[in-house]
């Protein structure tokens, strides 16, 4: 990994954690978007590691308190987000119309949020199991009681992805450091 790549990763990590720790409504976040972008620009492995690392730090510093047993689930959830970014890079091309691309990324944002919520809610369900609730009921209750939060998360993520993706792609295309990594093959969507 060269110095400029490392610097950009560190900057994004700091940005991501700062936004994650800033006061905000529950389940409205930019972490998955940034993690997805890291996966898109740096590849699947780097995206997954980035996502897991951000959630690891967030687990200790979050204004909602220490994540505890749910931390590994959050790390896995966000690693999947970063990983998906790397996969999506292989399918981005310039032939799509801007509206279609925005719609696509919005759906992707919602889907990613859903997967993340299912994983973390299962984590909550496991805590219920440990406190004596029957397994099926515990998982079912955790998923059901997280419905409102999931709805907020999916909607907000769809909006964030749908609105920010295209401008971000343009910025990344214009960055000189991209020439050594994400712009090696073809430019990102522009």
């Amino acid at each position: 990994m060269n110095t400029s790549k490392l610097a950009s990763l560190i900057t994004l990590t700091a940005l991501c954690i700062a936004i994650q720790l800033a006061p905000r409504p529950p389940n409205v976040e930019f972490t998955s978007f940034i993690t997805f972008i890291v996966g898109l620009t740096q590849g699947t492995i780097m995206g997954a590691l980035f996502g897991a690392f951000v959630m690891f730090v967030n687990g200790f510093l979050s204004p909602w308190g220490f994540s505890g047993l749910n931390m590994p689930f959050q790390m896995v959830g966000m690693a999947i987000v970063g990983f998906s970014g790397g996969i999506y890079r292989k399918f981005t091309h310039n032939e799509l119309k801007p509206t279609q691309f925005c719609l696509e990324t919005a759906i992707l944002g919602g889907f990613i949020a859903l997967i993340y919520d299912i994983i973390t809610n299962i984590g909550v369900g496991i805590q219920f199991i440990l406190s004596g609730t029957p397994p099926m009921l515990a998982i079912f209750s955790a998923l059901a009681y997280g419905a409102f939060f999931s709805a907020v998360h999916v909607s907000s993520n769809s909006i964030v992805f749908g609105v920010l993706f295209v401008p971000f792609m343009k910025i990344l295309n214009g960055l000189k450091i991209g020439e050594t990594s994400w712009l090696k093959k073809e430019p990102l969507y522009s």
Partner: protein
Amino acid sequence: MVEKRTLIFVTLAVVVWASLASVFAGYYYLQFENSSKQLEEAQNSLSKSASSYDKATNKYNTLLGEYAELYGNYSYYTGDNYTEFLKPFKKLIDKLAENYATLLLTHEDLNKTYLELLGKYETLNQQNNVTKQEFENLLNRYYNLFSLLALKELEKAISESVKLSVNICINYSDRIEWYNETQVPAGTTLFEATKKIANITYTYYPLLEPGHILIDSINEKAAYTDPSYTCGYSWIWYYWDESNGRWVVGPVGCDAWHLRDGGIYKWNYEKWTWP
């Protein structure tokens, strides 16, 4: 022909929508289950209350009938010696104790009143001549205790389904403690609620009415009377009058004052002087 890429994203969108719809359905199902369970519990508790209420009123009516019979006989009696009424009166007391045994066992204040009444009866029973005034006093004491016990029994029936939330303040003069949203069953007196939240000592005064109890100490802070009897410190209770926005001094003994839901009460450690 629909493009493969579009199809994938439409599928993803449907998956997101279906999953969210499913978890919402699950949420409402769980809420429905919980509400049904709570409703069933509430209905059971109401049925229990209704059944207890029936028993309590039956008991009350039977005892009241027997009391009325004795009272009628006493009212129409023209003689000077009322000794002959002591025997049926004893029967009445025994029945009272038998019917309200649990209450007398659990409520120290009521038990003391009952023992006082029994003592009065025993004293009169030793005498050869019982005047009208003496017997009337005895009957009145009996009726007061009977009414209190019946009221308690009815409150107990209600308390099976109704809980109250009260706020109690204890002002020690050098510090104040608040016991907010203290949960107590309906029918609880201030004395019982205070016993629940603090360590208290008290004295029972048979002649005080209504309510026979004066608090001697709360959480080790004891009332004090100067040997000259001209000044001292006592625990005085107040209730918050919401309509006038002020504290009102308790008009009866704390064991006779029934708490209301959302009521605010205060124990004040106060200095007094005499005269």
